Every structure is written in C-alpha cells, then in structure tokens.
C-alpha cells in the first residue's frame, strides 16, 4: 500500500510531467489564462488519460504480446488515444449536452497532448501491474491539473500586474513556469 502511495506522490509532485519532463507545454501555456478553462482542461485530461491508458494497457498485454507484434505499440497507442477521444466526444455530445458545453471543446486539444502518449508508454516500459498502472495513470494528469491550476491563478494575477513591455504574455509565463519548476525540485527527497 505504501508503495502505491509513493508511486502516486512521486508522479504528482516529484516527477511532475510538466515541470520535470516539459511535456504538455502547449495546453499548459494555451489554456491557463483563466481558472475556469484550466479546470475544464484538467478534468478532461484526467478522464482521457485514465481511459486511454487502461485501453492501451489491455491491448498491449492481450493482443500485441500474444501475437508477437510488440513493436506496433506506438501506432497502437496513438490510434487508441485518438479513437478514445472521438468516442468520448460522440458519447457526451449525445447523452450529456451540459458536460459537452463545459468539457467537450477541450477534447480535440487533448489528442495532441503528448502527456497522454507518454503515460501509455510509461505504463509498459515500467512494467506496472494493473493497479499500479491505474494509480500512475491517475496521478500524472492529477499533477498536470494541479500545476495548471496553480499556473492559471498566477497568470490571472499577472494580468493586473505591472510588467515590462518585453515580458508581457508568454515570456513572463515561461519565467513563472521556470520558478515553479525550481520550487517543485525541492520535493525531490520526499519519497
């Protein structure tokens, strides 16, 4: 149990996917201007990563390994993610218009989020069992969402701050991200 907790904590804080591996920078910068948008994006990312990871993990061990075509994992995972996003979008369009209004617009953006593919590949390369895979697949996007929300609150304050002209917009956002990465590096010895 403590190992699973360590895995969760490490994925959220110590090896945060945005601040240590610099993945998912596009939505991190693009959808962090408002807290509402950041929240919607974060929830959508958690949902898609958990779902796509479970499907890709199952396909790898139940289809690719028995057929001896493990080298097809990259194309499989890309298509599984894209298919899962299409299915999810279609499902909530039809059965939950309110949910589509709040989250649906973020779904196509998630297809291009490299964090989703990285998590699916990590689950295989780290040889996780099913429980570890689910914990890791939830922890990574949870860490992504936490950093995205923190970043969004800082950027909202930056909008009303006095910033030199040359630093306005993305330059000051990247400086903030660098300071956040430095701050998060202090968690390194936690687990």
């Amino acid at each position: 149990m403590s190992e699973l907790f360590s895995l969760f904590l490490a994925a959220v804080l110590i090896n945060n996917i945005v601040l240590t591996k610099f993945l998912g920078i596009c939505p991190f910068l693009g959808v962090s201007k408002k807290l509402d948008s950041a929240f919607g994006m974060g929830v959508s990312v958690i949902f898609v990563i958990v779902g796509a990871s479970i499907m890709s993990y199952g396909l790898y061990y139940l289809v690719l390994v028995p057929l001896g075509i493990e080298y097809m994992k990259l194309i499989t995972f890309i298509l599984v993610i894209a298919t899962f996003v299409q299915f999810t979008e279609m499902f909530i369009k039809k059965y939950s218009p309110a949910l589509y209004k709040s989250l649906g617009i973020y779904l196509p953006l998630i297809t291009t989020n490299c964090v989703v593919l990285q998590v699916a590949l990590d689950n295989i390369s780290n040889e996780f069992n099913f429980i570890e895979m689910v914990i890791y697949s939830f922890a990574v996007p949870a860490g992504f969402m936490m950093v995205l929300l923190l970043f969004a609150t800082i950027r909202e304050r930056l909008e009303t701050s006095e910033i030199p002209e040359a630093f306005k917009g993305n330059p000051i956002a990247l400086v903030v991200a660098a300071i956040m990465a430095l701050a998060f590096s202090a968690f390194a010895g936690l687990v």
Partner: protein
Amino acid sequence: MPSNLITAILYAMVIAAVYAIFYYLNHKTPLPKGCENLKVECEGCKISSCELHPSHNIKEEVHG
C-alpha cells in the same frame, strides 16, 4: 513475407478502420443546442499548424 509482418499489417488496418468508424460517427453526431460556436480560448504557442491556432480564424474570416 513472414507471417508476423502480415499479422502486423492486418492489425494496423483493423485499428485504423476502428478509428475511421469512430471519427465518422462522431462527425455525424449533431452538436447539442447552444454548442454550435464553442471555441477554446487558446493563445499559447506559436505552432500555426495546430487547428486551434488563432491564425486559422483570421484566414476563415478573410476567405469567408
């Protein structure tokens, strides 16, 4: 041709077909009322090939 390679090609065709079916079904599903003009407020990166990049909206306005 080794059987492993044929299996891989068939497998790739199957998963690509599954994706194509879901893509078609998704685009055929009508948008809920009030969601026709939803847009992500993304002004982040400079990757102009991304479909959400604001430059695509400008082009649409110019040509439209």
